[in-house]
């Protein structure tokens, strides 16, 4: 129906609605059918050049012998995928990423709901609530680079954390938190928990404020204590929020790069290697852009699965 471009208002006075509109209502808003695309064009161009083209490129690279580095590269089919998928470090990185993200999300939720519940108490004055809410949000406001260097200082062998544990007799000597293979993964996970929970907390606080008070009233009348109320009123009411936040948080945490890169660099050996750092190293340390692309495509597919979950959850929520 390209001819309908001419639907541009040509009517001097609308026959049907003589009172005021000089043009038919629909064409007012619609105008040329191309008009919405004109408005969308900057976005579409950015998305095409910076999303569609790169994804085609990375898939193309992944089937090459030595993309980017060598001009006369050869098509090698799934060889690079085989190389990546048979690499023990890739699987180590996958399991590290799953642990790192899984534990982070659970802890973000646990701390988030605890702090949100405290903040939501009716016993607090608005001013006190505002002050504490700000304090609780603070870690989220610092960029990951800052969080990384801050914790490197706190966890330094001569740093305050080691001072505290030796003073209180938890350990006889200082612990090299970030460079010993036993502690590195738990510690980077802890750091990520520290800076990520406010995201959950704010959403849950908004959710808590939206729960009708009479639900609690009714539960109380039925003789439900605070714990029972929490599990049978609060949690079911917050369920949609919790699910969306959890998926979103999981997606983002699996993509975390800066925190790992600036604290452990994936080490010692591969104890904190994540899919992001593994892929990065393939490309920018080993200069094997083809293998890196294969890894990046696998990571993309995994993320898309999570994204589908998220979109479904959003639809269910609406």
């Amino acid at each position, binding site marked *: 129906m390209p001819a309908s471009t001419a639907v541009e208002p040509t009517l001097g006075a609308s026959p049907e609605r003589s009172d005021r509109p*000089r043009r038919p209502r629909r064409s007012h808003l619609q105008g040329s059918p191309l008009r919405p695309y004109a408005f969308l064009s900057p976005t579409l161009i950015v998305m095409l050049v910076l999303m569609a083209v790169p994804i085609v490129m990375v898939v193309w690279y992944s089937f090459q012998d030595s993309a980017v580095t060598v001009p006369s590269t050869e098509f090698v089919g799934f060889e690079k995928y085989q190389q990546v998928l048979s690499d023990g470090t890739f699987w180590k990185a996958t399991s590290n990423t799953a642990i790192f993200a899984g534990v982070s999300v659970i802890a973000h939720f646990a701390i988030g709901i605890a702090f949100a519940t405290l903040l939501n108490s009716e016993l607090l004055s608005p001013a006190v609530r505002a002050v504490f809410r700000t304090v609780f949000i603070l870690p989220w406001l610092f960029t990951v680079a800052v969080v990384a260097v801050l914790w490197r200082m706190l966890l330094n062998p001569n740093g305050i954390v080691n001072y505290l544990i030796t003073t209180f007799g938890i350990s006889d000597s200082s612990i090299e938190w970030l460079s010993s293979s036993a502690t590195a993964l738990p510690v980077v996970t802890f750091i990520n928990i520290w800076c990520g929970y406010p995201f959950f907390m704010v959403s849950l606080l908004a959710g808590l404020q939206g729960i009708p008070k009479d639900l609690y009233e009714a539960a109380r009348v039925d003789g439900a204590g605070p714990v029972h109320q929490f599990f049978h009123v609060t949690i079911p009411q917050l369920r949609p929020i919790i699910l969306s936040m959890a998926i979103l948080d999981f997606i983002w945490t699996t993509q975390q790069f800066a925190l790992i890169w600036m604290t452990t660099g994936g080490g010692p050996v591969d104890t904190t290697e994540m899919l992001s750092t593994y*892929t*990065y190293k393939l490309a920018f340390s080993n200069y094997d852009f083809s293998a890196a692309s294969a890894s990046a495509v696998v990571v993309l597919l995994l993320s898309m699965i999570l994204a589908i979950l998220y979109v479904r959850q*959003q639809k269910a929520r609406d």
Partner: protein
Amino acid sequence: MTALRERPTTPMSHSHPAPTPTPAPQARARRNQRPQKIGIHVALLVCALFPALPILWMASTSLKPNGQVFAWPPKLITSAMNLDSYVAIFADGEKLRFFLNSYIVAGSVTVLTLLASVLAAYALSRYDFPFKRALNVVIISVQAVPPITLLIPYFGLVVTLGLYDTYGGLILTYMVFTLPYAIIMMTGYFNTLPRELDEAVMVDGAGPLTVLFRILLPIAVPGLVSVGVYTFMIAWNEYLFALTLTRTNEMRTVPIGIQLLMGQHSYDWSQIMAMSILGSIPILVLFTFFQRYFLSGMSAGAVKA
């Protein structure tokens, strides 16, 4: 209907909870709540140590002479505290350059993202057109595309386009993260504004651009602010692309600058912490002034920097 969730940027109630009119028997119960009230304040104070202590320690370290950073026993406040580290940063042109770069990049990304997202959101909110639903789904799902996946082709693209180690390379590539949620948030905001508003003006013969810029934008300022502060924050904090797509210190942004300080042989922790604080100030200031917009955006689940 549309896959885009409505995310009206209505300010989250702060001064909440609206003191619900308390019936008389509850008022009596309130007097017995004193122990509970004290308990909850104590619990909050203890919990506040978790976020606050590390940050206090950062502030304290930035004021200590570097020799005292790891002095045992550690002291939060010492008599030797001074502003030397801050002075040293302000006297160092190379470090100031990191800040300048970050402001240029984050500022440009914010302006361009606002422009593009307002236009796109107007189309998505006010028009029906083929592939609209598909486009909505694309906009939502590209948010899940891992930066590391894009980085590899970007590296090639940016070099080919001659944008390696330039502001342009960073500004352009950051848009890919900022645009999707900006469009989602702006569309949600426009959806809350009544259509009758545009129609009334259009009846008077005004074109869609007039409607958008003269009528909708002025009342959409809260939405613009919300999108703007988030965009700025994302661009200010970005690390991976800044690390890979720039090379010279003239082009490095603050997060990379902080890392460069770490790379030197003897760590000047005092200066690293001062740099960290200075590098966080723009975001802290934005948060202070626009807290409610931050909170509404966060609770909409739109953004995580």
